[in-house]
């Protein structure tokens, strides 16, 4: 403790400060700066800066793992910029691990990866989740839609839990936060992202870390004040649509032949072939007017539904600091219009970080406040567009307010309204507020012993209004409108006057919802680091408390009296539906962590944590059901250091292994009881009668957290002075005693049980190769490759006879977790096949295939293989980056195809030109021989070929009712991003260069090109109707894929 008193005894005592960087100027964090011969030492911050009190005659020593140590005489200088040479025998990287504690790469016995700020912002995505796409082997980002504010899902090393959360834990400045934080955090605020790939990496977080963690460190202030402005603008355009048929127009199964199938008010496109004749869609209006269009396909018609989107993104940031304190603040505003007309999104993010050091105490404060608003349609716009026949020039109907034939009174279609009318009259307005922040106090008790207290909070508030305009039809529309120029003889059905749809009003409606969520996370931990001769010891001991609460309120009414007035007083019935719910869960735990090192080449690390969790707690439950211990150990061994082996090719070699037993407590609160619901309709106020019904889900009394065991081995190799670095891992995870809401036989009286049952083996291999192929004064070329293979297998499902767990189904498919298969697993309805030849069996009486009973398994819906490559080429001030990704080894289901087959828009529906045909490659059962013989002569009946066999929902064996028509390979190659930027060398510009420190201009594009296999004629295989576990089905709720181009200007002062 001498220095503590001694400091003030020296008259020449003064403060020195400096910045430590690598040879290429990157700030170095965690470098120890020590006054030689004393205990007086500090570590550099994330900007590489340090401040130290010493005297003129002293010498400071800089040491850091991976760098050659350096000594500098202080002399009279007070400011230093120190370049540390890397010690090429080790990896240079400093990794931020759990709790924000830094370690060097060679200490770590599990797989991690780092993403730098430039990698995050190179694609200029304003969504941080999206920006992680294809950056790290083993990290997969599922971009489930192209909407204006989508929420990508981030998964590390595949999925383990069938029904629980599989997404990575997000840790922001040391505090676990909800995963939606990635959707609103400003990517420009990020200093560093460490990916803890799973298993052992996040054991310190206990159950929360079971899926791995994404550890985000935000930018902090710097001693050199910096102001930066940047602005990006981009356009977004439809990339491609499914293939549409261009041969046939409006009609359905009305008559005996295609001509008779014509109908002027039909949504389906199973009518006669286009012939260019003038036809009259829809009905005659009150003023005697009616529509006339040539009966021929309008090229580009289906593209004309989609707008060009725009995004404008403005950023401002300021950072500054001095010896004791620093601040960072930023503001970002993003405004975007999507390709769906009228859809808008706007986001504003404000961030403020500050820290101050008072003697031994450092207090820091981080906060993000984001507010956004969206205005989107609630109608299934894409579906409506599919129900507009190809000969209707739909843009004529866009301005339905001012032009005739667009509103429901006069629109030609008897089944679906004008898509633009639907779009304008069915809206959802959302306003969300997000606040998260933390306060950290770190007290240095001695040089070895520190105590840190950190309290963090994450709050969300969501408000949404959904409105549907009512419409009252005119008397003419409901009773007198009639068709003209149409042979009434064909009209077996729609005789009579007026529109079918106009017989009742469109009631409209209004819904308001409000929800808020609040999380508090508190950590208190001690760290103790010590070196004894050849040994080093780093320990952590801590406590964690978490509280999560949420509340939801919703009110809605089903019918409105007047249009364009969205208030509950406008409710026609005066009746409202209301709902509310609250939720609370708590967890507390204690943890201990120790790393022991020997001579800097062998490190053994162990972690243990014990948690108590409320979601498994109920008075009277046994203690071991709601508390559990997780633990893990890993070892890292640097071979070259150990054996003092030097050569010119291999300069670094580490092998590592880890083992970890974790628990997964991923159920929500209140799931331990069977619930009692009001029986349908009850209670009734006039009688005061109450009737109850017993809920269908019964939890087992022994329910407890899932068990996850992970093992991992890997190696990291550096070649040619680390110009080539290879990182390979193999991992295996067994998730046992999984909590399933498993369907049981309804004959038990219940429909579901909640139990610990299934077991999944998840394993994979991942490799990354980073190369620095060219490095000289003007040129630099980095090419990185990431490859991973992951698969899982459901080895146990509940009991015998219980063979599959259903995620999603429609009449044509079941998406399930099935025993002995990788999950999620897709099964579809199919045509019957001859087992000997695999050929489709037809019914000779109709010429059409016979539908098979049961479902046919076709494959897993998550990719097994991902491959990505990143290129970064710079020449003087120019930098070119590119990012290409492949995913493969899976199938998807395109529900979109069903809609297109139903409406008759898909190109497949005219593959036989709507003529009779002999089903290719088919067989039939020959009655005399009772054998399957090649079918060469039984053609489909005309009726079947035109409508019944393709789009007829009421024909059980039509294509639209057969799922095998709509699944496809999910494989793709994508050019994710390409950018070219130029960085002005401001030193050349004299005085201007003293004011303006940097100017960078960038031109860039995202999702520029996608290559798909030929059986995917539908849409982007990444799209999915959910971002939960059951991905793999896209619908018309996923608007078509887009590509974006833009430019960015960034100026720093």
């Amino acid at each position, binding site marked *: 403790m001498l220095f503590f008193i001694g400091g003030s005894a020296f008259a020449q005592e003064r403060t020195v400060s400096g910045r430590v960087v690598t040879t290429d100027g990157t700030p170095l964090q965690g470098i120890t700066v020590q006054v030689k011969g004393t205990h007086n030492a500090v570590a550099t911050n994330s900007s590489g800066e340090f401040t130290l009190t010493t005297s003129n005659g002293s010498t400071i020593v800089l040491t850091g793992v991976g760098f050659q140590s350096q000594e500098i005489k202080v002399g009279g200088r007070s400011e230093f910029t120190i370049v540390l040479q890397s010690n090429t025998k080790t990896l240079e990287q400093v990794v931020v691990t759990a709790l924000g504690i830094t370690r060097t790469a060679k200490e770590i016995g599990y797989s991690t990866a780092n993403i730098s700020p430039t990698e995050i912002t190179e694609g200029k995505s304003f969504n941080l989740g999206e920006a992680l796409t294809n950056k790290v082997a083993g990290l997969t980002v599922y971009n489930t839609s192209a909407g204006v504010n989508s929420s990508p899902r981030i998964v590390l090393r595949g999925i383990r839990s069938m029904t629980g959360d599989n997404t990575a834990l997000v840790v922001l400045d040391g505090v676990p936060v909800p995963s939606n934080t990635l959707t609103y955090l400003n990517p420009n605020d990020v200093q560093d992202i460490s990916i803890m790939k799973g298993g052992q990496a996040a054991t310190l977080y206990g159950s929360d870390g079971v899926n791995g963690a994404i550890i985000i460190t935000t930018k902090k202030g710097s001693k050199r004040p910096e102001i930066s402005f940047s602005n990006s603008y981009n356009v977004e355009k439809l990339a491609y649509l499914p293939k549409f048929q261009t041969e046939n127009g409006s009609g359905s199964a009305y008559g005996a032949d295609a001509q008779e199938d014509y109908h002027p008010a039909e949504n389906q496109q199973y009518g006669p072939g286009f012939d260019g004749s003038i036809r009259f869609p829809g009905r005659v209006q009150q003023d005697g007017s009616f529509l006339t269009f040539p009966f021929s396909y309008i090229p580009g018609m289906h593209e004309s539904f989609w707008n060009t989107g725009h995004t404008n993104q403005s950023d401002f940031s300021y950072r500054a600091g001095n010896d004791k304190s620093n601040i960072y603040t930023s503001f970002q505003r993003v405004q975007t219009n999507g390709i769906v007309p009228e859809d808008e999104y706007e986001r504003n993010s404000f961030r403020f970080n500050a820290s101050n050091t008072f003697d031994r105490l450092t207090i820091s404060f981080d906060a993000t406040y984001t507010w956004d608003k969206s205005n989107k349609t609630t109608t299934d716009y894409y579906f409506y567009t599919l129900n507009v026949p190809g000969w209707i020039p739909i843009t004529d109907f866009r301005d339905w307010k001012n032009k005739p034939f667009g509103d429901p009174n006069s629109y030609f279609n008897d089944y679906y309204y004008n898509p633009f009318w639907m779009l304008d009259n069915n809206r959802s307005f959302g306003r969300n507020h997000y606040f998260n922040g933390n306060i950290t106090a770190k007290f240095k008790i001695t040089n070895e012993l520190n105590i840190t207290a950190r309290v963090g909070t994450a709050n969300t508030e969501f408000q949404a209004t959904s409105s549907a305009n009512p419409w009252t039809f005119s008397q003419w529309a409901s009773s007198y409108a009639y068709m003209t120029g149409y042979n009434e003889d064909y009209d077996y059905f729609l005789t009579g006057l007026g529109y079918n749809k106009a017989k009742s009003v469109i009631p409209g409606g209004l819904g308001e919802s409000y929800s808020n969520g609040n999380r508090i996370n508190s950590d208190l931990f001690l760290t103790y680091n010590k070196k004894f001769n050849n040994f080093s010891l780093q320990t952590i001991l801590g406590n964690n408390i978490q509280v999560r609460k949420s509340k939801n309120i919703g009110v809605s009414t089903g019918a409105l009296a007047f249009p364009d007035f969205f208030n509950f007083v406008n409710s026609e019935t005066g009746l409202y539906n209301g709902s509310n719910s609250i939720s609370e869960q708590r967890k507390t735990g204690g943890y201990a962590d120790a790393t022991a090192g020997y001579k800097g080449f062998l490190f053994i690390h162990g972690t243990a944590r014990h948690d108590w969790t409320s979601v498994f707690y109920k008075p009277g439950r046994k203690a071991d059901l709601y508390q559990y211990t997780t633990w893990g150990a890993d070892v890292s061994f640097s071979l070259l250091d150990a054996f003092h082996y030097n050569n010119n090719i291999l300069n670094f070699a580490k092998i590592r292994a880890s083992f970890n037993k974790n628990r997964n407590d991923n159920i929500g609160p209140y799931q331990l009881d069977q*619930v009692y619901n009001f029986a349908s309709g009850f209670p009734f106020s006039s009688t005061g009668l109450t009737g109850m019904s017993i809920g269908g889900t019964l939890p087992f009394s022994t329910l407890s957290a899932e068990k996850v065991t992970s093992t991992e081995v890997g190696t990291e190799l550096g070649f040619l002075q680390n110009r080539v670095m290879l990182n390979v891992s193999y991992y295996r995870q067994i998730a046992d005693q999984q909590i399933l809401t498993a369907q049981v036989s309804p004959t038990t*009286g219940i429909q579901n049980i909640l139990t610990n049952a299934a077991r999944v083996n998840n394993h994979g291999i991942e490799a990354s190769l980073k190369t620095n192929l060219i490095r000289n004064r003007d040129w630099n070329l980095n090419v990185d490759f990431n490859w991973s293979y992951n698969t899982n297998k459901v080895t146990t499902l509940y009991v015998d006879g219980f063979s599959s767990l259903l995620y999603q189904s429609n009449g044509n498919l079941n998406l399930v977790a099935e025993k002995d298969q990788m999950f999620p697993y897709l099964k579809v309805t199919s045509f019957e096949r001859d087992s000997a030849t695999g050929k489709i069996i037809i019914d000779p009486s109709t010429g059409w295939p016979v539908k098979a009973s049961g479902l046919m398994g076709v494959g897993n819906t998550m990719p097994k293989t991902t491959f990505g490559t990143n290129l970064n080429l710079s020449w003087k001030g120019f930098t070119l980056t590119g990012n290409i990704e492949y995913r493969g080894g899976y199938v998807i289901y395109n529900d979109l195809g069903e809609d297109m087959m139903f409406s008759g828009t898909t190109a497949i529906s005219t593959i036989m030109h709507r003529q009779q045909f002999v089903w290719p490659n088919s067989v039939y059962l020959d009655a005399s021989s009772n054998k399957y013989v090649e079918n060469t002569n039984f053609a489909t009946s005309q009726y079947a070929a035109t409508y019944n066999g393709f789009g007829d929902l*009421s024909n059980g064996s039509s294509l639209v009712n057969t799922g095998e028509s709509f699944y496809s390979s999910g494989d793709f190659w994508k050019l994710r991003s390409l950018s070219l930027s130029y960085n002005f060398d401001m030193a050349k510009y004299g005085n201007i260069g003293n004011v303006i420190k940097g100017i960078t201009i960038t031109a860039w594009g995202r999702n520029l090109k996608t290559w798909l296999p030929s059986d995917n004629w539908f849409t982007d295989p990444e799209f999915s109707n959910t971002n939960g576990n059951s991905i793999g089905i896209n619908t018309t709720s996923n608007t078509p894929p887009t590509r974006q181009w833009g430019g960015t200007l960034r100026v720093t002062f």
Partner: protein
Amino acid sequence: MNFLNNKLFGILTSLLLIIFAATSCKKFLDVNTDPNNLTSSKVPYIMTGALSNTVRIQITSNVHVVAGTWSGFYGHSTSYTGGGNEKTYVVTNTQFDWMTTIYDNIYDYQKVIERADAEGVGFWKDPAVIMQCYDYARLVDIYGDVPFTDAVHDLSNLTPKYDKQEDIYDSLIIRLDNAMASMQAASWPTASDVTRQDILFGLNKTDWIHFANTLKLRLLLHQDFMGTRDAYIVSNVQSTANLGYLDKNVVIQPGYAATSGKLNPYYSLYGFDESNTVTTNFRYRKMNKVIIDWLKITHDDYRLQGLAWPQGTIVTSPLPTWPSTASSYTYKGVPMGAGSGASNSTSSAMGPFYIQRGVTSSQTGPLVLFTLAESKFLQAEAAVKYPALATDLGDPATNYNDGVHAHFRLVGNMCYEVGAGNIINNAGNTQADAAYSAYIAQPIANVNWAASSDKLRAILIQKWVSFVHINGLEAWTDYRKSSVTSENGHTFYSVPLDPRSQVGIGNEPVRMIYPQIEFTTNGNNVPKGIDHIQDSPIFWDVNN
């Protein structure tokens, strides 16, 4: 590390341990009581909910409309796609599940039976047993073999074995007998706050006994075409005939109101919502040509106007009046299996019996479980088939006429001269009585008793008419047990197919196939090899 540091470390460590101890206590964790749902309830409330659900199940689109389609009640407007499976008789096991809701209902009754004594309300057990019998009979009539002895034991038997359908039927008769005997000996509470929870009979013991006995008669008569069960049927009818049969309509009206979720379930499911907005069901579920034509050719305008709306897209007014003004309307049913030709505007919708748009008595009227007409027809059927039973059950001609009359009054009270109280007791109704008298006097076979050479056929046909909008499944059961075969001579009506139909004649369904869920969750027990609805008829169906 010097002494001071050691000490500090020790202090801090113990501080942390104290924090653990304080925060890990149970009080901190005790926040897991569900604030959003009830986690317990009492027997009377479960009973009330279960009774309501039993009646609701009877009119669900599966049990009622699909079965009703196959017995000539309903069809689909060809302006709308859908309904293809019942229309074309092509059903796979992923499409229908008629099982889950029924077992869910049986389970609620099971909990009543298990808990009633402990809660001091043991009198609820016999009604619960009777209602379980009602549900199990439906299951057998739909599926044949189903889980019975192992069923509804939730966690203690997750894969119930299937029992033989004949055995289940026999057990149900015994259970009904036991329940009737037990009720006779019991004394039941009369306080209105207790009896009101019984929304069927207000804990009127006599009514419950009548109901059980009539249900027993229904189940016995399901077997009357088998030929091998005659002695069994006769002795079992005789054993309890003295207890009497239903003398009223069995309905529930727990307090339906013209607000969302509280409407009469038939009205809201097949008619309109609380804002008078039409449902898709009303637009496309139409009346079948078979029933419409039957009512037309027998000049049964009174019931035709009550059971169907004139053709048209949404014709819901004016309400029918009597004497008939029907000449200004046309009634048209959808031919069986029609793939085209029956548009929304050229077919009749479900009628004012349950569906009168925006009319309070229709929005809030009672829902019928079992009719007095059926009780009378069952007694007539038994006495015609087994003349020995006439001494117990009375003259079949009288029962037949009373049955038809009762149904006229029900139709009258539901849609001409409305009054909920009148519906239960089948109160006199001048128009209905006059219409009935005129109708029954017509010398038409299967209308007038004397003019009917085949009395059984007359009874079955009139019973069939009385099931319209009430019980599609029971109509289908009667049809299956008695139709098709020429040997027994009781093709009491036929379900002719439309020339443009998408199915071949002779493919008529005889059962429902087990739902997919049973194959995935109880695969070792569910009977295999029954892949089509034309396979493996129910045991009482001897015609296939």
